[in-house]
């Protein structure tokens, strides 16, 4: 149990960050606004969670302009994808250990 917990990624402790990462694994890139809508959270909430993932270098932020409107997109990095997979494996192990 302790081994598995060592690999438990703190960046994915929050359900929202876990969900953000899931979306970025299923899609190449995802719009800030679409993500906000999908997860049904506020601007600030999404921005702060994204910041944590960005700091870990799990996601890239792509900023562009749609005319005058700024458009923010997120993309999972290679290390982010790896970390996410590892985290899922850890979760799996945790469940398996509980069910003999």
């Amino acid at each position, binding site marked *: 149990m302790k081994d598995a917990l060592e690999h438990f990624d703190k960046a994915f402790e929050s359900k929202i960050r*876990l969900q953000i990462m*899931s979306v970025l694994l299923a899609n190449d890139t*995802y*719009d800030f606004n679409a993500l906000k809508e*999908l*997860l*049904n959270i506020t601007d600030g909430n999404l921005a702060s969670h994204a910041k944590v993932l960005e700091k870990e270098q799990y996601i890239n932020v792509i900023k562009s302009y749609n005319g005058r409107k700024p458009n923010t997109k997120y993309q999972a990095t290679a290390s982010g994808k790896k970390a996410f997979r590892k985290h899922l494996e850890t979760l799996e192990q*945790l469940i398996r250990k509980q069910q003999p």
Partner: protein
Amino acid sequence: MKKISDIENDIASIKEIMERSSRFISLSGFSGILAGVYALIGSAIAYYLIYYPNSPFGYRFYYVNEQDIVVKLFATAAFVLAASLLTGVLLSMQKAKKLQLSYWNANSKRFVINVSIPLVSGGIFIACLIARGYFGIAAPACLLFYGLALINASSYTLGEIRYLGLIEIALGILCCIFPGYGLIFWAVGFGLLHIIYGILMYNKYDK
């Protein structure tokens, strides 16, 4: 420490969010039912135009060569198509609103593009067939290309649409083997199947 039920919850939410983020899930089941009803009405009109007062099961060899009837049939088909599309778009917009998603996002765009590729190429092909007078093959070709369009789009929306596509293709092939019964196959393929599919999807997702 996290409890196992929390972890299972997390994994379930990952699965759900991956699905929801990459597929167009606002497709309305009720619009399928209505599209089927329109198609049945259209088929009834076509029956009056072509066969009346004979039975639609009778083989009609001289078929729809009269220019006048061809134009009327075209108008009926176009009207059914337009009404179905309009209903589909409106009801899906409504469902998107209920699900708190925007109806015109990356997923719905992908869905529309992938439905359109086989549908538009098929439409042009069928227009060529009709222009050259191959009326008998035009009806099954519609079912075939429609089935292919659904299968092509099935990875971008509710997965069940794949089975509808397969059945449409099977009907299209049967229709090729039994030419002259195009109207019956159309009524089943575009009418009955849409109604059944629409009811199933409505019960599963829209309730």
